[in-house]
């Protein structure tokens, strides 16, 4: 009897510790997704920097309100207090000469919907929404499905 009690007590004492160690282990493996289970003191060999897609071809948007992607390199393009290199081609006044697509009219609207002569300050920093793409595999799996595809599937099921 005494032996049984001691065992139970010992188990009770140990169990929270055991649980803790399991959860810590779990956390460790979960956090390490991008590091690919590399031990914290180690380092993976560096991957090469992928090339930026520079084909000037419009890429399909994944949903209607997606900011269009930049299909060209933007190395050294300054967007700051002094100048906005993007607008040297994409502003309303410049598109006739550059043949680049004009930024949408929403970029000339303030938050109340009033039209401004110049680019709205809240839309000034192009790279907040618009990015270019590289020739590389996604780092994590992406299960995004286009709304259009979902609707199609639904109508086919009915």
């Amino acid at each position: 009897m005494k032996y049984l009690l001691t065992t139970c007590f010992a188990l009770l004492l140990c169990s929270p510790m055991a649980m803790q160690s399991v959860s810590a282990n779990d956390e460790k493996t979960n956090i390490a997704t991008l590091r690919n289970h590399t031990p914290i003191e180690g380092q993976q060999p560096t991957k090469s920097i992928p090339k930026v897609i520079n084909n000037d071809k419009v890429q399909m948007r994944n949903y209607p309100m997606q900011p269009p992607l930049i299909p060209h390199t933007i190395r050294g393009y300054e967007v700051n207090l002094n100048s906005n290199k993007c607008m040297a081609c994409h502003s309303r006044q410049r598109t006739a000469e550059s043949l680049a697509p004009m930024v949408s009219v929403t970029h000339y609207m303030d938050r109340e919907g009033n039209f401004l002569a110049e680019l709205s300050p809240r839309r000034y920093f192009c790279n907040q929404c618009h990015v270019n793409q590289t020739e590389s595999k996604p780092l994590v799996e992406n299960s995004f499905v286009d709304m259009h595809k979902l609707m199609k599937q639904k109508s086919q099921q009915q």
Partner: protein
Amino acid sequence: MKKMLLKAWYTMRRPSVHYSLGFLVLGGFVAGIIFWGGFNTALEATNTEAFCISCHEMQDNVYQEVQPTIHFTNRSGVRATCPDCHVPHEWTNKIARKMKASKEVWGKIFGTINTREKFLANRKRLAEHEWARLKANDSLECRNCHNFDYMDFTAQSDRAAAMHSTSLASGEKTCIDCHKGIAHQLPNMDSVEGW
């Protein structure tokens, strides 16, 4: 003063008393080589990156800006240093530019841009000088390396080929018209053509 000048004039007019003609001719020739060589060596010494960035105005501002750009850091290891773009390569034009640069020595002595704030305040004026110079000589310093006749449009991106084969080919535009800020940060571009 007048006496001294007259004395010098008479000395120069008289034939040499002590030295032979051969010595004078050969000596003059050797001295000419030494002086000319010395002059050119000194000139070339001022035509190096190390000389340019020996002033903190250049080291702290424009030299920092050029380093991440394509003309400094690139895959093929060809680097354009300061004088490649800012000093003409041909001798006559080089001397003309060097004479104009005496204004820059003035600026250095009187500290026209000796702080970051002063440099930023003057950036537009300084940039406009460089743009005007390159516009006037049809971007000669660009073309020292980038020869239009040697360009392979098929190797360029579609956009670049379209621009180069029209505006640049017709001579309507020159390099600097589109490639402002290629190597240094831009000043305020308000009211600059093409912005």
